[in-house]
């Protein structure tokens, strides 16, 4: 990622220096296209994993945590970093420990860029990142921290930024020991406020980057954090956060020091989880990925994720496309508005009738004929003996299908398939 980001930055600066306005626009367009391509590669990798990975929980949790620690690719040069962010900061910890995940995500250059902390320096305080760490990444809004805590947290965060330069900044001799550089993440002591801070009643003496790292550990162990994360997990999987279940999950979170599988185990073995089976309408990513898996996974390998991405985008949940740091909403109601359902049924029809573009290879023209048609879902499902789980209304409707493609479209539109 370091090499990529630096190269893109060089291209960006060179384009800006072109004298002739028309040629400059062309150079800037080339830069823009290259950045778009980097984002596209990350999307493709992520979606192909979603479709083919045998560990579906790992992929679902990767999406969940990316969304929890949301960044938007379009901001500044994050398109060059977003693939690394998902792959190195999120996925390895998705079923690991929350403390490690928190550190990896919140010290990643993509996140530091996205929440403007590279502009936070002593004397020029930018509170944005401090606020979102407390409000969105850890404790949750209204959970007991104050505006003063945010201001103090922002002081801790001063100097934690991103550098694309191979050289360290000019530092006074006494500052050099505190300088830290890890790939693109740079802690610049000259920009840091080394005074003492107090956050959540805890005194933090000036020390450098370790103030932030230690504070993340403190935040990861807060009961408010345990509750907030447990609530979100429950919402994600069952569209509800029953207080008693959240209590049990929070206790496991604290008892196992942020071990994510321990928390999920409580959730998955709960009565509430069993009762919620097939009750929560899928969000667009889950809907499209599950439909593509069901329809195409047994056939020849899908080589091109672009159509999958287009379906997801049409339904309003593009990967890396959420502008605001709160991530996409987890509640099913956010995705089952009238216009959204109609769009979902249209997408069901397209997935069900087969997209030749799924098998396109690079350089090949669009809509190449002689590609595999989608299998008839009717026989796939017969083999899996799905029929007894279907409502009689659904069975009646499916019986009226006039073609295998229509059968596919109707099945993918059924209430049974629409819900997780």
């Amino acid at each position, binding site marked *: 990622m370091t090499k990529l980001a630096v190269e893109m930055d060089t291209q960006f600066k060179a384009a800006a220096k072109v004298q002739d*306005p028309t040629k*400059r*626009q062309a150079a800037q367009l080339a830069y823009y296209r290259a950045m778009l391509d980097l984002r596209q590669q990350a999307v493709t990798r992520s979606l192909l994993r979603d479709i083919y990975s045998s560990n579906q929980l790992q992929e679902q949790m990767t999406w969940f945590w990316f969304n929890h620690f949301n960044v*938007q690719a379009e*901001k500044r040069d994050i398109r060059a970093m977003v693939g690394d962010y998902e792959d190195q900061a999120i996925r390895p910890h998705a079923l690991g420990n929350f403390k490690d995940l928190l550190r990896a995500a919140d010290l990643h250059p993509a996140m530091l860029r996205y929440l403007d902390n590279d502009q936070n320096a002593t004397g020029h305080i930018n509170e944005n990142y401090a*606020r979102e760490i407390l*409000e969105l990444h850890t404790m949750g*809004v*209204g959970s007991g921290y104050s505006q003063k805590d945010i201001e103090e947290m922002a002081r801790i965060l001063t100097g934690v930024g991103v550098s694309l330069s191979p050289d360290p900044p000019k530092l006074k001799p006494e500052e050099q020991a505190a300088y830290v550089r890890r790939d693109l993440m740079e802690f610049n002591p000259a920009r840091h406020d080394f005074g003492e801070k107090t956050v959540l009643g805890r005194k933090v003496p000036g020390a450098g980057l370790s103030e932030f790292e230690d504070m993340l550990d403190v935040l990861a162990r807060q009961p408010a954090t345990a509750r907030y994360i447990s609530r979100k997990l429950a919402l994600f999987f069952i569209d509800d956060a029953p207080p008693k279940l959240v209590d049990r999950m929070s206790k496991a979170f604290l008892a196992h020091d942020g071990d994510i599988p321990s928390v999920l185990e409580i959730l998955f073995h709960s009565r509430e989880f069993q009762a919620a089976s097939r009750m929560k*309408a899928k969000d667009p990513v889950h809907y499209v990925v599950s439909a593509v898996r069901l329809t195409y996974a047994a056939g020849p390998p899908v080589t091109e994720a672009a159509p999958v991405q287009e379906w997801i985008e049409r339904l*309003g949940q593009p990967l890396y496309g959420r*502008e*605001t740091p*709160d991530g996409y*909403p987890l509640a099913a*109601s956010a995705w*089952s*508005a*009238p*216009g*959204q*359902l*109609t769009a979902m*049924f*249209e997408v069901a*029809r*397209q997935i069900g009738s087969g997209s030749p573009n799924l098998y396109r290879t690079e350089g090949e023209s669009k809509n190449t004929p002689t590609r595999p048609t989608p299998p008839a879902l009717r026989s796939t499902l017969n083999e899996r003996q799905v029929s007894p789980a279907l*409502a009689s*209304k*659904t069975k*009646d*409707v499916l019986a*009226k299908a006039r073609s295998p493609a*229509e059968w596919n*479209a*109707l099945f993918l*539109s*059924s*209430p049974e398939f*629409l819900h997780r």
Partner: protein
Amino acid sequence: MHRRDFLISSLGASAVALSAKTWSAPATDQRFLVVFLRGGYDAINVVVPTYSDLYYGRRPTIAIPRPDPANANAALALDGQWSLHPVLKDSIYPLWQKKQITFVPFAGSDDTTRSHFETQETIELGQSVGGTRSYQSGFMARLASQISGASPISFTGQPPTTFRGADAVPNIAIGKVGKSGLDEQQAALIQQMYEGHQLQAAVREGFSVRDKAYAMLSGETAAANHNAAPPSNFELASRRIARLMKADYNLGFLDVGGWDTHVNQGSTGGLLAERVRQLGRGLSVLVEEMGPDVWAKTTVVVLSEFGRTFKENGDRGTDHGHGSVYWVLGGSLPGGRIAGEQVDLKVGNLNEGRDLPVLTDYRSMIGEITGRLYGLSQDRLSKVFPLAPAPSLNLI
């Protein structure tokens, strides 16, 4: 008593006595449409401070010439100080003459990030910049919840931030309405599967909006043929919006992109002039398609996240600034005015030396308009725009 006078008085001394009455009888025959120009439109090259020598000094290649009957490319005089881009001569200028449009210069938000993303978000959420924000609550959603009989719609491909928090607001990419891939029988079969299901109403509503939108397409070819030039996308969209808001919806949101003119933005002609021409044409088509009776009960607000730099940049374009010029249109407006507080545009009066200051807050402006349109009490209004500066513009 004219309805408007009634509402103005209801906000005055007798507000307490009248509030119960206005609550129980909200004006659901009123239509309200917000048009968001995304990208920060260069307001002062569209509604031009032609009185300002500084304007001409700072914009040597892109300024719009002062009003001059002998020059077809000159700006059109509005109130002696401000003038209109000449490309709006046949669309917006007639509305000015009919007093159906008011311009509000020095309008905008208190967000000073000059970031498209941040400032659009700020405005759509309509919450105060300093406090803790709820990203799940947009001002159009809160407005819809305060009006009984509200029938909101978003003319955008995705549900916009401003409608977050509202139940089942239909959204439709109005420029891209096409024939559905699902035929009638398939639509009926899908609805049959959802009979008795909790999503039954939403599924039905979804197909119904789709059908309404598609049905209006049938009349379009004939209407479009009246025009010598083929209609732009925005013009087509405006006609559809007018039809949907005439028949089925009373609270609308539309966004129009393409205003981020950093390079070669042009002057009386060129990039920006073409966008403005399409915008003006689209709005006049909207008025025409609604017809006088419906237009008399319609209010449109045109806004953008920020204005641009007062000085043109080295690329004959402009960069991100602060204050903008908002437009208010309506068939019953006391328009033909430049409204709101102003400062003389000379050295020393610019915001941070580079752009227009904001003297009219978008929340107080929209709050006042919608408060009067729908007879909302201060209490209800404060639920739509908490902590908004007090309104005093008398725009409607």
